[in-house]
């Protein structure tokens, strides 16, 4: 510890701050494990929203459409979205630290976390947003084909009422895509910086 009587010495300020160290008791560990499981359950439940949306749109599309090709696309979208639940959420239940976290240096473990985050965003785009976009596009195509074939007549009913909802969905999908892509770019930039730091350190 450094003996500096100056009240402005950052290390003195830092080390003399009041703290209330907490120690893990068995009771706290048990509670923490439950909390982690509850948090994972909440995240999984939130993740079900997109597949439900896809199932709703595609189910309606299958019931309303008469083209076998469109029905096949809607069925594929449902299957894609369901499979996506596995790929997006795998490994969610293990709240543990990676086995070698303490043996890896700060740089290595931090880069692994950033890469994990970047891959998670990629998986979200492919397995969650992808089916939503396909379901939406096919549904809009279905609406347009109805309109063209029947000179706009069916659009006056329920389908026309869906236009604001579908427009909102399209805006949401575009917004999510743009934000996630920007975040991925930021994370990739961070990985590049960490790689540079590692290269410099290896010299």
């Amino acid at each position, binding site marked *: 510890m450094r003996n500096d009587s100056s*009240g402005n010495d950052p*290390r003195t*300020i830092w080390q003399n701050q009041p*703290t209330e160290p907490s120690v893990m008791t068995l009771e706290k560990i048990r509670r923490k494990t439950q909390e982690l499981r509850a948090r994972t359950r909440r995240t999984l439940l939130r993740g079900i929203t997109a597949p439900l949306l896809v199932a709703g749109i595609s189910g309606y599309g299958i019931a309303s459409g008469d083209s076998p090709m469109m029905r096949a696309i809607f069925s594929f979208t449902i299957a894609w979205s369901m499979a996506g639940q596995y790929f997006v959420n795998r490994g969610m239940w293990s709240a*543990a630290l990676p086995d070698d976290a303490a043996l890896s240096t700060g740089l290595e473990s931090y880069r692994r976390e950033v890469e994990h985050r970047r891959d998670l965003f990629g998986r979200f785009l492919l397995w969650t947003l992808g089916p939503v976009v396909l379901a939406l596009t096919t549904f809009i195509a279905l609406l347009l084909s109805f309109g063209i074939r029947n000179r706009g007549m069916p659009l006056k009913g329920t389908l026309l009422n869906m236009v604001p909802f579908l427009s909102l969905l399209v805006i949401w999908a575009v917004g999510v895509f743009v934000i996630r892509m920007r975040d991925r770019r*930021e994370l990739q930039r*961070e990985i590049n910086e*960490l790689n540079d*730091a590692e290269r410099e350190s290896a010299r």
Partner: protein
Amino acid sequence: MRGTESSSTGAESQDDLYRDAADKFGSSLERLARAYEADPEKRRDLSQDIHFQLWRSFQRYDARCSVRTWVYRVAHHVAASHVLRERRTFSKLVSLEELEMLPGKDHGQFADQGVNLERLSMLIQQLKPLDRQVIISYLEDIDAESIGEITGLSSGNVAMRIHRIKNILARRFHEGGGHAK
């Protein structure tokens, strides 16, 4: 070393190792949590997460590195993951290099300790996690070699970052650059 004891005493050893580490580094871990999370509620959660993961990690402790390095590596790992999870706009975090360029307010030589601590915490919380690891270690009086061991940066790289840290702190806290190690 207790970490290499037989598996029959593994659980006991894990608890002992954890208890010793918590006794020795408990205050440092609280300060570390403060450097990563400004919100007191979330900070308490983060602190508990660090202790929880530290307890779990000691199951695998094999004395390949010192207990201090082990503790800091685990703590920084948990805290950096927390930053990545919580941070909505990752791009707002800056590197030491960028922070050195930013103009900092000088609050005078005799500002209140609490105010100074708040300013110091805010300054650290602006930094990207790797630079945060270096500045926290520096503030904890950890030597450059050990900082290199914790972070994985070379001694030259650590020295360069510490030099920047000293400049930033000197400008903002009236600390002479030559004071620090």
